Structures are given as structure tokens and as C-alpha cells.
């Protein structure tokens, strides 16, 4: 229960930062996806049922403050959570480089899914600009994760978990 509350609070703070201050510091299109960093953090630190439910709700709130259809980011973040948890169980990615790589892949997947969804609805050019956008945003978010992960660990030191244990 504590972990669900913690996840909700950090997700709310992440969304709050993204819709206000982050756009002031960096171009809105390239701002780091802080909620996704929280999702990857949860996939390494929080038990599966708690993390899955927390991440799903965080995704729903992200949808409320984004132009995406309701449920879109809830699904994407849940998917990234599941993949993150099982990749970590298989190859132990809980080192700074591994976490950053997971975030990089997560943003890449989220961005590709967002563009694919729009392409299904109407004409969108998939040119170099789309690739550059996704790659740049992935790199920026991965770099931001190097700073955000230690902060999350510091805020919730009791959440260390060995994958597969509840």
C-alpha cells in the first residue's frame, strides 16, 4: 500500500513538472518523459501487482493531461513495466547504464506507438524528422534518468526488491 501511494505521489509530481516547469526549460517536444522513468524504476523496485496497478493508474492520469486517447499511456506504461520487470529478472539491468538503456528503449517504444497510432488515424509523414524526434527524446530522457533514479531510491530506500519476490 505504501508503495502504491509512493508511486502515485511521484507520478503526480512528474506529471506536474512536465505540464508546467519542464516546458519552460526545454522545448515541449523534447522534454524528458519523467513518468516513464518512474515506470522503469517501479519495474525494478516494486512488486508486480502493486507496480502494475500503480503504473496503469499513472498512465491514465498521463492520458488526462496529454492529447492521447484515454487508456493509451496506461497500456504503454503497463507494457514497459512488464518488459522491464522480466528483462531485469533475466539479465539484471539494475546498474546506471542498464537502467538508462531500459528508459531509452521505453521512450523509443512509447514514441513509436504514439506515432503509429496517429498514422492509423490520419496522414503523418514518417521521415527523418520523426526518427530524429524519437531518438533525441529517448537520449534526453535516458540522461535525465541517471539523475532521477538516485533521487527515487533516496526518497524510498525501503523499496529494494529482488525480482520475482513480493
Amino acid at each position: 500500500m505504501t508503495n502504491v501511494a509512493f508511486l502515485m505521489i511521484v507520478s503526480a509530481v512528474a506529471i506536474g513538472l512536465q505540464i508546467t516547469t519542464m516546458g519552460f526549460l526545454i522545448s515541449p517536444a523534447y522534454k524528458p518523459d519523467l513518468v516513464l522513468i518512474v515506470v522503469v524504476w517501479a519495474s525494478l523496485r516494486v512488486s508486480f501487482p502493486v507496480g502494475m496497478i500503480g503504473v496503469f493508474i499513472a498512465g491514465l492520469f498521463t492520458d488526462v493531461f496529454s492529447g492521447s486517447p484515454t487508456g493509451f499511456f496506461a497500456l504503454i506504461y503497463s507494457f514497459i513495466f512488464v518488459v522491464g520487470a522480466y528483462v531485469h529478472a533475466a539479465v539484471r539491468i539494475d546498474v546506471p547504464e542498464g537502467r538508462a538503456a531500459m528508459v531509452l528503449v521505453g521512450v523509443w517504444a512509447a514514441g513509436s506507438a504514439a506515432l503509429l497510432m496517429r498514422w492509423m488515424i490520419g496522414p503523418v509523414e514518417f521521415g527523418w524528422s520523426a526518427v530524429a524526434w524519437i531518438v533525441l527524446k529517448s537520449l534526453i530522457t535516458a540522461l535525465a534518468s541517471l539523475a532521477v533514479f538516485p533521487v527515487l531510491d533516496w526518497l524510498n530506500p525501503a523499496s529494494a526488491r529482488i525480482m520475482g519476490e513480493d
Partner: protein
Amino acid sequence: MPRSVRDIAIALFLLAIGLVTIFASLGRPAGGPLSRFAYTVARPFQEAVFAVQSSAKGFWQSYVALIHVQEQNRRLKEELRQLRQERSVLLNKAGENRRLKKLLNLKSTDEFPSLVAQVIGDDAVGWYRTFLVNRGSDDGVLTNMSVTVAEGLVGRVVKSSGSMSQVLLITDPDLSVDCRVARTRDRGVLTGSLDKGCTLRYIKLKSRIRAGDEVITSGLDGIFPRGLTVGTVKSVHRGGQGLFLEAVVIPAVDFSEVEEVLVVLGVRGGFDIGSELERER
């Protein structure tokens, strides 16, 4: 129940809820209880942050402006004198224009009832080009209402709930606007583009459209009032397998500088804005 089975069951359950939510939300105006709750909680914080940001920006701009303030003051006085003269001429023309339009039974877009709203937040993730404004369904703002500024069209409301609304910008590929080229009167459909501002599609091949032409709303899509400035044509090329022309359009509005917007309180474009409003007028 084994843990692995339970985990899979949770994942499948949430996957099902997510898919049902997505398909239920497509093609339906957004703004349920979740949005209402989230917007109500978030609005005070966003307004506070916006106020601090505006103050900081204002302070910085004031400081920088002091460097050349004397020269600027003299120039502004001169401009003010000229603008006063121009204003009196324009007031006369506006009156004349209004009278003529009344005679022709046309409705000026300036006559749409509108509401001033403040921009208080960006898109949460950045994959979509939207922003949040501090007016919602409690103020009469509904989905599909168009949003403008003095320079031109900004976008349309896509989510509205309680005290906040979300505006999809014309630079987003999800938004389509039926437009006309002001000079040639050719029609086209404007959509946002990932790298070039906007693209005006489906322009007939015989069109004499060229760079520098102004693009305005046609009002024929049933959403946007007609005659709103959208942008300027930057370049023209053949598109759609050579069947139509396509034009790259630079929006008239600099979206990074928008702080206040006008929400047009009518959800039907063209000439009609609703019988109740018509009676009021």
C-alpha cells in the same frame, strides 16, 4: 493461486481495461470523472507555477528592455501617434463593414461570443501538440470549440472538464482544418506536420497558389468559424501521387509565445453558431 498465474491475470485484466478504455474514448468527446478530478486538483498548482513563470519572464524582459528604454520610448511615442490615426480610420471602416455585412445577412467571425482563457500547461508527455487552459465545462467550454488569438487560429478544444480544457494545436497531425487560400479562393485540408509546421493538402492542380499566399479557414468543416487567419504558404509541390498540389504552411501564431487565448463559444463552424446564441444577438 500460483504467483505467476496471478501476475498474468493482473496483466491481462489491465490490458483488457486499457483496450476497452481506448476504444471507448475514440470518437467520443473526452472529459469524464477522471479528467474532472485530475483537472480540479491540478489547476491551482498549474496557475501558481504559471504566475511564478510569468513574473520571472516579465522581470527578465523588463531588465533587458531598460538597456535601450529611452530610444524605445521615443519610437513607441511616434508609433502611438501613427496608430491613433490608423485606428480612427479603421473604426470607420469596421462600422461600414458591419453595416454591409448586416445587409448581406452574413455573420462576422468577430461577432462570435468568446471567452478569454489563460494557458496554464503543456502536453504531459510531448508526443502530442496540446496545451491546457484554465477554462472548462463549468465556464461553458465544450469539446470541438475553436481557439484563436489575435494573430490567427490556434486549434480546437479536445478535452474539457470542470475548470480546465485541453487544446489541440493546428501543428498537430491529429487536427485537420478545411481552409482556403485567401487570394485564389482554392480549398484544401490543412493538417499538422512533424517537421514543417503544417501541410495544406488536396489543392486542385490548376490552382495558382504560390509562396506568400495567406491561408484562412473556410468554415466548411463544421468546427472552425470562417475567415480566421491560419498561416502563410512557404512552398508548393505536387503530392498525393500527383493528383493534387500540397503546400507547406507556416502558422501565423507563434505557439511558444501564446499566454492567453480566445475560446469561440460555438461548436458549429461556418455561418451557424446555434439558434440560442442567434436569438440572443
